[in-house]
């Protein structure tokens, strides 16, 4: 119980530091694009070019209607950037902040939270591309669009514990980072970003064994006016609760060691 309470205290301290974390994430974003004229909009341009290029090329290759394919690809890519940004950067954040950890008492989960917020700032910028694409290829507007909000909440909540757990484990085992880096390009193709799970026909169940499929579906389907199946929500809720609990317990158990790991 004592180990659990240590992790939990770190968790609540982190939540209390949310404004501070946002301030830091915003500062990071500013620092990254300092001295560039367009700033974070370089990211938006990159996404726009990617969507336009890949959209026209792949819709030809796969022989799919552009008005169906491009919005789906665009939303998929933007969500994928959020997910992969968190997962790819998570292994390095504890080590990057080692000096801070060793000098000023800070809750450990502060750093994954900062990463998540920075990725969400990028995501918010990228939504401009999504809006532009949806103006060109308007989706059907219906009640499903309300589900965008719980969708984003579930994705963000799940990404938080995933990034936190990865960052803690890779502070101890340094080859987790390269391992993740080498798997992510493969994951891009295994996750229905370019295609839809239903296009896999008989093998659709394989896509649903991939946790990232749920994260994409939770946001993409409601934006396009589709309602995700109930089990998508059930699985995401269960993973949010168990994942967060697991992270908090792991953190509590290793709490005294982390400062020595980094």
């Amino acid at each position, binding site marked *: 119980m004592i180990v659990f309470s240590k992790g939990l205290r770190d968790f609540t301290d982190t939540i209390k530091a949310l404004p501070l974390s946002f301030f830091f994430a915003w500062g*990071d974003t500013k620092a990254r694009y300092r001295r560039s004229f367009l700033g974070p909009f370089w990211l938006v341009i990159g996404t726009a070019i990617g969507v336009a290029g890949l959209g026209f090329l792949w819709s030809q290759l796969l022989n799919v209607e552009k008005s169906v394919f491009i919005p789906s690809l665009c939303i998929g890519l933007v969500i994928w950037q959020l997910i992969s940004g968190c997962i790819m950067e998570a292994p390095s954040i504890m080590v990057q902040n080692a000096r801070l*950890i060793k000098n000023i*008492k800070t809750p450990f989960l502060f750093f994954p939270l900062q990463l998540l917020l920075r990725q969400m700032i990028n995501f918010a910028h990228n939504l401009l591309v999504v809006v532009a694409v949806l103006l060109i290829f308007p989706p059907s507007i219906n009640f499903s669009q309300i589900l965008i909000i719980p969708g984003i909440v579930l994705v963000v909540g799940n990404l938080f514990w995933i990034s936190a757990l990865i960052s803690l484990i890779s502070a101890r*085992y340094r080859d987790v980072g390269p391992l993740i880096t080498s798997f992510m390009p493969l994951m891009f193709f295994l996750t229905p970003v370019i295609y839809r799970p239903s296009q896999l026909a008989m093998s659709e169940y394989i896509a649903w064994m991939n946790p990232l499929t749920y994260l994409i579906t939770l946001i993409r389907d409601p934006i396009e006016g589709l309602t995700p199946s109930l089990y998508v929500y059930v699985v995401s809720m269960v993973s949010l609760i168990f994942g967060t609990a697991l992270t908090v317990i792991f953190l509590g158990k290793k709490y005294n060691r982390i400062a020595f790991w980094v």
Partner: protein
Amino acid sequence: MTSLIFENVSLQYPIYNAQSMSLRSKIVQLGTGGKVSKRASGVITVQALDDVSFELKDGDAVGITGHNGAGKTTLLRAMAGIYNPISGNICRSGRVTTIIEIGAGLDDELSGYENIYRMGMLLGANYSEMDSRIESIGEFTELGAFLELPVHTYSSGMKMRLMFAVSTSVKPEILLIDEMFGTGDVAFQLRAQKRMEEMISEAKIFVFASHSEELIKRFCNRRFVLSHGKLVEAIL
């Protein structure tokens, strides 16, 4: 009422080599197990603090001396709650502020002003509190127009001024400072001394690790000597 109490605190410091940081060797270890894995695990532990006990209360200004590697910095980190002991108890009441390494918590790409906000908020102030203090902090550092420049252009003495100004402006109740305090120039040290004296007179705890007898005599009213992780109180 500020206090800091150590009761029989022992702290071991694990040092991980490349092998112990590797997931692969951990997995191989699981497969082989037994005695070999213990020796091959590659984690060396150093006894950094050994049965340390003391009690600090309002108005205590402690100088810590000891040769290199005696455990001064580790003791400061344990006081701050950054390192946790393997046995014994640490009882801490009061807001702790640390200045251990120069530049820790500063973002080199951001300007001096932006870093004052960052540091201050890290140490527990909120944005509007920092807004009201920014002017007096800027003044205290005497960095003037340099505060507009990114921190990577600063010398270590300038970083030290910035960190000291911010750390003392958030009204710390327990202030822990390591060695590098000596890097400021004479004029700055005099001002720092005045601020320290104000703080100590406001009945707060101040701990200062240094090799300089002179600085310790100037700032402190108690003195601890660390050697091989053991702590003894010496007469000042």
